[in-house]
């Protein structure tokens, strides 16, 4: 057994357990819910799984990306709806695809600072329904209408409405700073690193194949069953579909036409889902009689050029967090990287394997190295399991804990990219069994 990463004077913080709702393709069985319904399901599932008394929770932090305006602090609405004490404060964080990572590290911070002992963190994303707004002109008219005092003033405002003002405004999955959609950026990234269509399709197929295997052999134990009102009980992810290379090769590029390489089959799909984890100080967990699953150790956030390096977060975050922990890539037994696009993963692997990239863009002497594939996302990933933006982070951390238990390793590494050109990585240590 290798050395522990405990540091003198720093509290040991543990992951007690983690759960998630099944991740479903958006527009399927969850279609009629609201985001906080999914979050409620995850929170209740966590309570059931851990047998935690509701009033033992000091604080709740939840992540979300596309906000439902009615429940803008979705953490609080979900907590109340899930029957938590109304004395437990809750706040919502947002950091694109690493929102629940941010929720978890916020929890770690609260515990490390001595403010809390038991925090629930999680994330929810609901893409079956997104806020579609009136145009700015229309909104302006409607707001003025509120203030108009006389009938005449109201009629004149109504009269100012033109057909064009009725055109709705859809939320764009595009960077605000560059106006480039993420898929387009991923295609360019893949091209920059010379990742072929074949490599991407192969990786996507691998993800689906491994996910299917994990699902069939019951490894995805973080998934809880969820009785959807008016529908059946859901207990499985529904986006896992191993295809064939021939079938995948038939698809046309989704973003860059006609010569792009990113297709629907090698990208993650729009997903509904929620996740939750229970994080505690080690003392508290032991005092309450829990057997923790893992230690949450060092973590980093990184950010870089949102145009040309949008999805390279893992490349930047990995060496940084390893250095912080005094580890090398070889020390890591379990890797869980967020798979936004097969092309993005392959590009990151190539970047991590390149001395030139490390020297030219990261100010490092040498490359960090690419993770060995047999340790990498071996129970599937976002490409196959699905990617509810703000729920993915907890899935990654819980999966690392479960894989460490199952496969007997000591250290795990989570890494993810996020919109805005940001990234995150965390080192997780197995709890002695």
């Amino acid at each position, binding site marked *: 057994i290798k050395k522990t990463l405990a540091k003198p004077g720093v509290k040991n913080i543990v992951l007690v357990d983690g759960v998630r709702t099944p991740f479903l393709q958006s527009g399927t069985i969850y279609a009629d819910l609201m985001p906080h319904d999914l979050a409620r399901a995850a929170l209740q599932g966590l309570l059931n799984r851990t047998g935690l008394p509701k009033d033992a929770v000091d604080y709740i932090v939840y992540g979300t990306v596309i906000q439902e305006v009615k429940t803008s602090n979705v953490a609080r609405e979900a907590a109340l709806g899930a029957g938590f004490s109304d004395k437990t404060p809750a706040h919502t964080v947002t950091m694109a695809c690493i929102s629940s990572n941010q929720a978890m590290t916020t929890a770690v911070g609260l515990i490390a600072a001595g403010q809390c002992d038991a925090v629930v963190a999680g994330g929810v994303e609901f893409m079956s329904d997104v806020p579609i707004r009136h145009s700015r002109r229309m909104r302006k008219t409607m707001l003025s209408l509120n203030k108009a005092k006389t009938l005449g003033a109201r009629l004149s405002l109504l009269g100012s409405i033109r057909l064009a003002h009725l055109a709705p405004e859809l939320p764009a999955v595009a960077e*605000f*700073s*560059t*106006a480039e959609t993420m898929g*387009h950026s991923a*295609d*360019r*990234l893949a*091209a*920059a*690193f*010379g990742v072929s269509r074949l490599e991407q399709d192969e990786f996507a197929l691998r993800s689906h194949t491994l996910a299917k295997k994990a699902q069939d052999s019951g490894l995805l134990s973080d998934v809880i069953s969820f009785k959807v009102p008016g529908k059946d009980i859901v207990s499985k992810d529904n986006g896992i579909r191993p295809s064939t290379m021939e079938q995948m090769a038939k698809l046309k590029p989704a973003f*860059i036409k*006609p*010569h792009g390489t990113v297709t629907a089959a090698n990208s993650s799909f729009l997903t509904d889902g929620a996740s939750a984890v229970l994080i505690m100080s080690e003392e508290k967990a032991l005092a309450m009689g829990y057997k923790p699953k893992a230690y949450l150790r060092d973590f980093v956030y990184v950010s870089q*050029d949102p*145009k*040309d*390096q949008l999805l390279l977060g893992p490349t930047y975050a990995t060496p940084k967090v390893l250095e912080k922990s005094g580890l090398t890539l070889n020390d890591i037994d379990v890797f869980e990287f967020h798979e936004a696009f097969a092309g993005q993963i392959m*590009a990151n692997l*190539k*970047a991590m394997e*390149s001395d*030139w*990239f490390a020297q*030219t*863009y990261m100010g490092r002497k040498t490359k960090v190295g690419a993770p060995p594939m047999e340790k990498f996302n071996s129970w599937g990933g976002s490409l196959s399991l699905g990617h509810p933006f703000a729920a993915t982070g907890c899935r990654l951390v819980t999966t690392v804990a479960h894989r460490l238990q199952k496969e007997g390793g000591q250290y795990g590494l989570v890494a993810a990219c996020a919109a805005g050109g940001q990234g995150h990585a965390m080192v997780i240590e197995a709890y002695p069994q």
Partner: protein
Amino acid sequence: CTHEYAQQKIFIYVFFIITIILLFCSFSRLFNISSARTHVNYEIKGDVAVVRMNDPNSRVNTLSTQMQREMTEVMDEIWGNNAVQSVVLISSKPGSFIAGADLNMIQACTTAEEVTGLSQEGQRMFEKVEKSPKPIVAAINGSCLGGGLEFAISCQYRIATKSKKTVLGCPEVMLGLLPGAGGTQRLPKMLGLPSAFDMILTGRSIRPDKAKKMGLVHQLVDTLGPGLKSPEERTIEYLEEVAVEAARGLAKKQIPLTKEKGLMQKIQDYVMSYPFVRQQIYNTVQNKVMKQTKGLYPAPLKIIECVKAGVEQGPTAGYLAESQHFGKLAMTPESKALIGLYHGQVTCKKNRFRTPEKDAKTLAILGAGLMGAGIAQVSVDKGFHTILKDTTLEGLSRGEQQVYKGLNDKTKKKSITSFERDSFLSNLTGQLDYNGFNKADMIIEAVFEDLSIKHKVLKEVEAVIPPHCIFATNTSALPIKDIAAVSKRPEKVIGMHYFSPVDKMQLLEIITTDKTSKDTTASAVAVGLKQGKVIIVVGDGPGFYTTRCLAPMLAEAVRVLQEGVDPKKLDGLTTGFGFPVGAATLADEVGIDVAAHVAEDLGKAFGSRFGGGNVEVLKTMVEKGFKGRKSGKGCYIYQPGLKRRDVNTEALEILESYKLTPNAAVSSDSDIQYRLVSRFVNEAVLCLQEGILASPVEGDIGAVFGLGFPPCLGGPFRFVDSFGADKLVEKMRKFEEVFGNQFTPCQLLLDHAKDPSKKFHK
């Protein structure tokens, strides 16, 4: 100095917007003893030949003799190679596909026939390319201009990168030439008459997305960021990969060469099938050209003829017309003038003073008026941290709004994103105090043109700035040494005369005093270049160079008005000579008050030579509130939202009260034109004689870019060369007899008149 921008169309204003290298001089035509190829090579990838161009002696590729010879060899080998099914044509240079023909090749010719010969060689080469049995894909990254564009459009398929450096266009017209290697024949077929005329007659550069929409290119390729190689290198590789695939697709006929025409295209084609409609187009275009050029520029008219010959009489006549007109145009003084300006502009975009010791990063601008805010606008988007200081909140607010609006307009035109706008604006700090001036590298003072105010400001500022900080004063007439008189560190004081509107006018006149240090000058030039300016560096003196040339011409204009010439007529005479803005309109734009101020100051400094019109005319106008456009009335009446301007009859009344009787011997239309121009030109030559100007090139650039001296004449010095100093002196002597010393030719001009071998430009 204010100047109307909006009216400066095509042939004038192109010079204010050229920022790209059009046709680059290459000195590479050395004899190659061995047959080893240095400019063009090729590699066969399966069944596709990838032809790569790279001129080893230049930053950009040009269609030099060497390039053409090697290209012909390579293409012959490829056509003869049975293993090759298709071809990709690509440049190995990051920022340049082919930037144009080799200008030296044309300038080396002495007769029209020789140039026609060059054109025909190009035509033949591209005809072979067009008829190639193996499809050729032009893979374009960087500038694809002039002959480069003509090469590309003779290929069967074009793929361009979306790089900011990728531009397509035919800038020949800006040099008084026409696309002489098939451009006038292929573009109308490819784009239709209206788009083709627009492209060839304006010479405008077309960005990749627009080119795709127009049908000028078939496919676009994104630029790539960092990967396992540098972004530039990998982008070219990627372009090549995509182009090779396209070439294979074309050879296998999987990619069709002709696109299904859209409904609008079909309608347009149908309409164009009527000769009557085409004739209407020729007429409209011809009228437009005549209106904008007053017939002073031969190239656009010849372009119309070439296009017409091709469309109406077929390719044989079209290509013949193109090559012959190309040859003739190359010999015209207009083309030589425009090419001279092009070279001059390149020269004035370089810092002839070495690199400054310290790179200026923080600028502080005093005064948030039109000029101050304009200078701030062209600084923030170049990465200068810019402090904009005013004395009142209202003034500051107006100034900051001007900067915002300037950048926001660019956002609306999509030349920058809203995000870029915001990040540029983050470089701007608006304030009322001297906070942060202790970190400033350069102060640019743009306060009111009053010596005592400038002195007060200079003393205040010197108390708070660090020792290395440069104090630049933006004035149009006050001598810098007078401003510097109260400075504790006169070696750090320099003049930077910007032209309004600062974001549109390219010229910056930098004025050095005897005490200004070389490093101060180098630093001011470096800042100006970074702000995107074309720079002339001149000596100190009343009016420096530009204002000093303009003042006598305006004085003459006032006299002409006093003689009873209507402002509209005066404008017609000046624009008819090639000035983009008429003299009366120019006075209104500059401001009658400013003109009066300058006339009085320079009158005092230079005496009767600057006389002519009565300054009292201007003063009376100012008293009545006729300060020009800014006050709504001047020579004309300006009404917001109204394009039409009526002559201000009240101003005419003033002129009437100062009426002079014209002398019929010197009052013909042509006489009036030469009275105006000769005073301008004589003063310019005098500036060179006195050492205010360092070279005729700077004199020409300053006059054309700052004052709108007719570009077709190439500037006052080139005008003297081409018109003949002797002829000019002869005219001036005639005027001198009537008006006195205002028309006395200066010594340098007399020297040139005496010896016809003396030329300002070789």
